[in-house]
């Protein structure tokens, strides 16, 4: 019963956070100078007026806000001023699978490499293997995505021709993108895992377990692992937020038609509803991830169950 209440209250919190985020972006976007129709050619005044009226930009801001929220509740994110004839829903429906697959596979790659490396380095603490793995991880952290991405593109797509560069449809270019994204976070996760595994391995109950004669491997995976990956689980939320930022770069380099591309274009073109729409998608992803993380954390760490 307690856990259900906890989950419900977390869902409530997430929804409230989403509402706040939407409101903040709405007003940040609308209160800044510039407009969607000011860009390249200046239209005559009467056309401007008509355009603004057509999209509802002529009404006072609070009215627009209420309208927008009203439509949003019904699932309509409004028209896209930058992509004529498309609604924001269309644009997002088209491009979100690209970003989603990219982000999720990047996260999976990061976990699949990062956790084993971190556990291994912790198990072999202060040995040559430990130092070299952590050195590699440090290099991985310092070589940003935007260096790795063009390099991988050049080596695997252009030189070796294993992948079709700059193609999403019927091609595997996104694998390169996901690898690029994953590598950076795998380095980070490896360091995090190593640190927290060491913390756990130095605790008394581990020594007790070892002194009872349980093998090191069993202690490592049965006793230490669960506590050791809690910080990694907690890091998933920020990691996803970071992955989204990184995916902007990856989409640019590999020419993937994801949400990031649309978002950057929308921000420069003052495509207000598209800005809001992409922010909603990204924020809900992160909030959903944070929610999942909290639930998994409670499940991993029984001490957290009491105070919910």
């Amino acid at each position, binding site marked *: 019963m307690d856990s259900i209440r906890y989950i419900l209250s977390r869902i409530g919190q997430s929804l409230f956070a989403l509402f706040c985020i939407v409101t903040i972006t709405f007003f*940040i976007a609308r209160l800044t*100078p510039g407009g969607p129709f000011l860009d390249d050619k200046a239209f005559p005044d009467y056309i401007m007026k008509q355009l603004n009226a057509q999209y509802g930009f002529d009404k006072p801001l609070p009215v627009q806000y209420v309208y927008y929220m009203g439509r949003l509740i019904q699932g309509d994110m409004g028209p896209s001023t930058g992509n004529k004839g498309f609604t924001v829903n269309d644009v997002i429906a088209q491009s979100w699978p690209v970003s989603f697959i990219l982000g999720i596979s990047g996260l999976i790659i990061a976990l699949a490499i990062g956790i084993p490396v971190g556990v291994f380095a912790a198990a072999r603490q*202060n040995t040559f293997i430990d130092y070299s793995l952590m050195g590699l991880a440090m290099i991985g952290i310092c070589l940003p995505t935007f260096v790795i991405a063009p*390099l991988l593109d050049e080596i695997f797509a252009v030189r070796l021709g294993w992948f079709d560069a700059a193609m999403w449809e019927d091609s595997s270019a996104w694998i390169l993108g996901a690898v690029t994204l994953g590598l950076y976070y795998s380095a980070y996760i490896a360091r995090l895992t190593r640190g927290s595994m060491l913390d756990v391995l130095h605790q008394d109950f581990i020594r007790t377990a070892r002194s009872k004669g349980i093998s090191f491997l069993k202690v490592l995976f049965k006793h230490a692992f669960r506590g050791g990956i809690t910080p990694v689980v907690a890091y998933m939320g920020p990691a996803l*937020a970071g992955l989204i930022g990184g995916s*902007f770069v990856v989409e*640019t380099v590999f020419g993937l038609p994801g949400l990031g591309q649309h978002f950057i274009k929308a921000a420069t073109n003052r495509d207000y509803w598209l800005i809001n729409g992409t922010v909603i998608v990204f924020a809900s992803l992160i909030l959903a991830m944070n929610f999942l993380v909290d639930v998994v954390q409670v499940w991993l760490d029984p001490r957290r169950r009491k105070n919910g």
Partner: protein
Amino acid sequence: MSCRCGLIPEEGKMGNATVHIDEKTIEKGSSLGRDAWFRLRKNRFAMFSLWFFIGIVALCFILPFFPGIADPNNTHPDLKSLGPFTSADSMEGNRIFYLLGSDHLGRDIFARMLYGGRISLMVGFLATSVSLGIGVIYGALSGFVGGRIDSFLMRIVDILYALPFMIIVIILTTMFGNKLWLLFVCIGAVEWLTMARIVRGLVLSLKNQDFIEAVRSLGLSQWRIIYRHLIPNTLGPVIVYTTLTVPAVMRLEAILSFLGLGVQPPDASWGSLIKEGADRMASDPSLLIFPALIFGLTLFSLNFLGDGLRDALDPQSSRD
């Protein structure tokens, strides 16, 4: 020169019975900072990183004022894409030496790297100080006031955490135009959250300790307690996190510049240089390699320095 009882000599001196303790040794207390400095000095990686970073900063900020370093925006259409260590005669008849070669417009890569480094480092420092200021004040206030206000302030932080940083920075920079100072503020304004959390946690645990009780009973004002007694005691973790924020901020700036949203040409930062290099990687890899190398090494040294500082300032955290 008699030994003053009541003061305990430093531990190391105890074993040596013949040591003559003069007053200077006794009075020299071992402050946290001095202790940390000693520990840091023993960490060779961290010290090397520190000197390397100081070297990079000096190079970027001082060297451009020396004669012989080319103007980073000087184009030489006839001296395009030269390799490193070449010198060539320009159209005007001047002999130009390119230490690291020239780019597709005949600009000196070395000069551009120094120049770009200046902007990257400046963004790093200034944005970090913005985030430091906001984070420390916000966190200290929230932790000190406590109660409902604290949970309200922290709820705000939680909500902001769910906002994708990149998105907010992109919105802010595109909306308010590409002014450089705005870049500092924008990046700083989104990077303060973790700092606020750290400081709040520290203050929360500090404020119930006896010495705070003591100064409060002495009648110190709230504000004075915060900035004279609470904030100084949070310095260790704050310094560590600040060192780690600088590379994070520089990365963010570089990503923005890479996407064409940060520093605008002909200005350059390491991020925009890497972008230029990435675009011309196939024809001229040195355009990518040099900026990426110096950028990576700088981040590397800062991260190592941060790790070393963490070990030095908080010995308990490194049990190994």
